[in-house]
């Protein structure tokens, strides 16, 4: 075998370099400033492949729930206990809870399997990790994209709630950011947990069955939390869904809560979200930087 040719020196950058990308310094500067958005853009592009499925479930879920429970069940409930729900119909009582729980359930899906996919199945995170982006930006970008998805789903849900006449207050639309915040308060700690899982042994199914479902049932969703025995009420107090629902009710039909309590609800949700995000930064950095 002949000795390999030495590389051609000072050769013109022939194929494949003809278009002249901007220099690496510019790439690094832009990535430092906008890296999170670049990754969010990627995730949203991937989601586009499912846009019709996503749209169908975003419309189908509220229509089904509102018809079955809000209309069918509400007719019965309203006939028997007109004053049990603070003077509003059962549909109005239920709608903000269903809306917040839909957002949280979407968050529970988006912050579990796709995270595992990023680390393990298709290793999608390792591509951007080798680029100028840093790990915090990968986390933030993924969160931004999921926030956009949650917002879109929640807006559709709210429009359908409004069409059912279940959001009488003028402040009703403010339930949208509250529901998205609830989704993040639940989803971001879950994201950190998902990122820490090395092998899928059914943990996510357990999360759905033993965390998401009890929260859905016992967070003052279908009846006021105060009607539960005291020893079960703590489920509501720790549940982002209860805090989001209480806020939502005050916005959609003027359910009366003191200002300090409203502030406490918001603070609780924000703290969960921020702590979850910080944890996710740590876990991602440790796992990607091994």
């Amino acid at each position, binding site marked *: 075998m002949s000795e*390999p040719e030495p590389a051609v020196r000072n050769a013109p950058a022939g*194929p494949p370099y003809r278009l*002249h990308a901007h220099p*690496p310094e510019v*790439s690094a500067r832009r990535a430092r400033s906008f890296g999170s958005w670049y*990754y969010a853009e990627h995730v949203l592009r991937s989601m586009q492949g499912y846009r019709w499925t996503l749209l169908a479930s975003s419309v189908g879920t509220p229509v089904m729930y509102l018809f079955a429970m809000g209309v069918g069940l509400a007719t019965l409930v309203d006939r028997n206990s007109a004053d049990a729900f603070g003077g509003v119909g059962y549909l109005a009582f239920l709608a903000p809870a269903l809306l917040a729980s839909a957002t949280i359930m979407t968050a529970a899906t988006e912050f579990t399997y796709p995270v595992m996919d990023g680390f393990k199945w298709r290793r999608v995170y390792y*591509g951007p990790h*080798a680029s100028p982006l840093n790990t915090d930006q990968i986390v933030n970008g993924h969160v931004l994209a999921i926030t956009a998805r949650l917002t879109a789903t929640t807006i559709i849900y709210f429009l359908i709630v409004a069409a059912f006449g279940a959001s009488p207050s003028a402040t009703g639309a403010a339930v949208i950011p509250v529901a998205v915040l609830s989704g993040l308060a639940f989803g971001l700690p879950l994201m950190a947990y998902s990122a820490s899982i090395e092998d899928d042994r059914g943990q996510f199914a357990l999360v759905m069955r033993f965390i998401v479902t009890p929260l859905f049932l016992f967070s003052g969703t279908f009846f006021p939390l105060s009607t539960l025995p005291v020893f079960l009420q703590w489920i509501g107090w720790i549940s982002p869904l209860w805090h989001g629902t209480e806020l939502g009710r005050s916005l959609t039909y003027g359910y009366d809560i003191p200002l300090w309590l409203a502030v406490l609800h918001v603070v609780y949700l924000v703290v969960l979200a921020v702590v979850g995000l910080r944890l996710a930064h740590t876990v991602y950095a440790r796992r990607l930087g091994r």
Partner: protein
Amino acid sequence: MLTHPAGPPVISAQQLSKHYGDFRAVDDISFEVPAGESFGLLGPNGAGKSTTMRMIGGVSQRTSGRLTIMGLDPEDHGPEVRAHLGVVPQQDNLDEELKVRDNLIVYGRYFGLPMSYLRPKADELLEFAQLTDKAGAKVDALSGGMKRRLTIARSLINEPRILLLDEPTTGLDPQARHILWDRLFRLKESGVTLILTTHYMDEAEQLCDRLVVVDKGRIMAEGSPAQLIRDHSTREVLELRFGSERNTMVAGELEGIGERLEPLPDRVLIYAQDGEAALEEVTSRGLKPITSLVRRSSLEDVFLRLTGRSLVE
């Protein structure tokens, strides 16, 4: 001969180490790579090649030592270092939910490259990777070789002057490997610095100007492929098979033929300047191997000499 222009090396590693607990994945290695060189890390699986690559790529922290890429420390200037590089990881991590062309565009966005640059660039790279007719296909419809070429195309989206390739052709069939080598050779010709790891000696011989032989986290030898073979092996090798039972037994009777004898379970290697002459001497001693083969020394022999083990186990 290695004639490199004076100037700072694009990559410089000094006493670089990476430990995982008590395990020394990379143990005190030093090397420099000048611009435009094609530099290889040759060694078996688990030698520490990928760990070294991940440190150069600015995605894994070192335990100790010094490391600079374009004069920058990747731990202080991660984004700047990574902006200089194109990276082909050992395992493909393409986004299979995106189409082939979109994988390139999305990756280019990480470098802040505008769409006006990325659209024509993606088409140009698909042509380079011979994937133009697959532009609109889903990634999971591609063969292993095509995915590998797409990963290489993706690594070139920012027109990097340094390309890191971690076992670029592992798991590909011979034809796919040759297509890939041709593409890499073109990049090398256009002056791109290639850093590649491999456990294929033929790949190292084809692509590397210079390489280090790595084993158990340490550098065993360094030089051009031809120089390594000259320094650590003979010109030719005579391979003899006497049947699996007899190879080691016969070894004693072969003493003194050639410069060195290497009895392996399946064959005996005799290192000699003239393989045919060595074979004549074997037969003149009345030994009748089942098969005999005279070949040129390769990097495999260098590795065997340096470590006492085969490269591909």
